[in-house]
């Protein structure tokens, strides 16, 4: 039951940013306007090596499992 609620909440949360963006309009950011997002400190995880060590150390003292940054954002270069 608790698991069901978590999954439901998660799926709704998943569709939230997509819905947001749809409402916000699609022409909001042109490909050439991605300069700021391409800056290294705007990456979702600007310090991946440190995050890896931190999550390793924390998982030895905390019960919650490790989390990972996935790709996306950034300069959108092809």
């Amino acid at each position, binding site marked *: 039951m608790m*698991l*069901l609620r978590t*999954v*439901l909440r998660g*799926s*709704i949360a*998943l*569709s939230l940013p*997509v*819905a947001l*963006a*749809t409402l916000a309009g*699609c*022409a909001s950011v*042109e*490909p*050439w*306007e*991605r*300069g*700021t997002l*391409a*800056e290294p400190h705007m990456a979702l995880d600007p310090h991946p090596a440190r995050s890896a060590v931190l999550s390793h150390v924390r998982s030895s003292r905390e019960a919650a499992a490790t989390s990972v940054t996935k790709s996306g954002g950034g*300069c*959108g*270069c*092809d």
Partner: protein
Amino acid sequence: MSQVTGRSRRIAITFAFLFAATCASGAAAGDRTAPNCPLDLARGGPARLEQFRGKVVYVDFWASWCVPCLASFPFMERMNQDLAPRGLVILGVNMDARPEDAQHFLARHPVSFPVALSGNADCARKFGVGGMPSSYLIDRKGVIRSVHVGFRPGEAAALRSLVEHTLAEQGTRS
């Protein structure tokens, strides 16, 4: 429980695809005349794209923050040195929000082809730029012959031969 999960997930994915469908924009090539953009060339002052009619024009939309541009610039410089005598004009159209960033990039990667700094957003929109960098090959008649989004070193050879092929066509010199 798995049914509910499935439904929520399907809703989310439908949203995503709807989004993609409504927002999809393509950079169409083929039989489209290049827009006549005004360009403020760094070493040449104001110009318009039409004045290069009769030459093969390679328009490259670039920015200092675009990592593939580090590889595309040496490629374009080499191509310029080799093919400019045969009628190739390369135009680097910069899209940086801050011109200083572009100047800094050019100081480290000096090129001999003309570069247009600031004020090019309109031009990019008219061309329908869909990714950075984007390069448009325009033949001697002013028609966009090919659109290339992104730059990978392995694609350089194919790009170059396409340019040479277009150069070899007879243009309207009348």
